[in-house]
């Protein structure tokens, strides 16, 4: 390890570096306080080695952490990453709006594909959101994500449903109602 000519300067530089998150004025004040402490101690106890004085002051990191805590600054430890920063409206809109567009413009193929992708992403965002509990997520994804799709598939790909414009309209209205009620319920039951 490299021995330096001026351990005091190195020590103070280390404190300054570790305390870089402090406002400049506070940081300079801290370094000045420590420098004064070292000078006064050296004057009062000339026999004490500088290394002992610095050891008594302690680890620069500990001092900096204390200073940050006293100053109310979030210290070297980064603030815990916030999960679910996505606004709760985002998954709800992604699940519902594309569906409405497809109902309004059923013949635009790109819209159908885009709608599917948006709704899948919306479902994932809903499931990873911190705004709802697991049970609510299951109900929400089922009601406004899966049920309309299942209904549409049954309607279009099987012969269970009656043919004709009127039953199709009724089917769409029921789907819309389920989606609307589900969305409103999710919106109301969300956690802040």
């Amino acid at each position: 390890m490299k021995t330096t000519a001026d351990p005091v300067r190195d020590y103070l530089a280390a404190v300054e570096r570790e305390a870089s998150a402090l406002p400049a004025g506070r940081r300079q004040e801290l370094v000045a306080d420590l420098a004064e402490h070292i000078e006064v101690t050296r004057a009062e106890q000339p026999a004490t080695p500088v290394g002992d004085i610095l050891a008594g002051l302690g680890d620069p990191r500990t001092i900096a952490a204390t200073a940050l805590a006293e100053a109310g600054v979030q210290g070297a430890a980064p603030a815990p990453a916030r999960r679910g920063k996505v606004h709760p409206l985002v998954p709800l809109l992604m699940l519902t709006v594309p569906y409405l567009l497809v109902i309004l413009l059923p013949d635009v193929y790109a819209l159908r594909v885009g709608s599917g992708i948006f709704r899948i992403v919306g479902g994932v965002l809903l499931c990873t959101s911190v705004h709802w509990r697991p049970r609510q997520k299951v109900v929400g994804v089922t009601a406004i994500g899966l049920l309309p799709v299942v209904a549409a598939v049954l309607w279009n790909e099987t012969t269970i449903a009656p043919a004709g414009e009127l039953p199709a309209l009724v089917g769409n209205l029921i789907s819309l109602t389920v989606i609307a009620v589900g969305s409103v319920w999710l919106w109301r039951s969300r956690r802040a």
Partner: protein
Amino acid sequence: MHRMEAGDASKQARAAAQLRKGVLEYCVLALMRDRPRYGVELLRELEGSGALATSQGTVYPLLSRLRRDDLVTTTWQESASGPPRRYYALTDSGRAALDEFTRVWPGFRDAVDAFLTVPHASAGDHA
């Protein structure tokens, strides 16, 4: 069940550190009760006390906060030996904070002692 583990020593150190954190500033204020003190002097007293001894450098951020909170004021005074010293003195609100702590501390201390005393005389314990 409590098992001895490698982390226990550091947990105990943490308990002492937590306690110190709570009372240190009042001990520092108490040291200034009769007259202003300079930093090295305050640290020497804390060092001599044993339990309150801490990494000395961490007391300066504490002093800085006490000053910002207007519990202490500082003045520079020349010294016969070495550089001028920054003296810390209680303000009125510092003295009030110290008086308040002095008032509540005995009850606090006795309550903790009562919990820690073995055997603990528990009123609700009908074995």
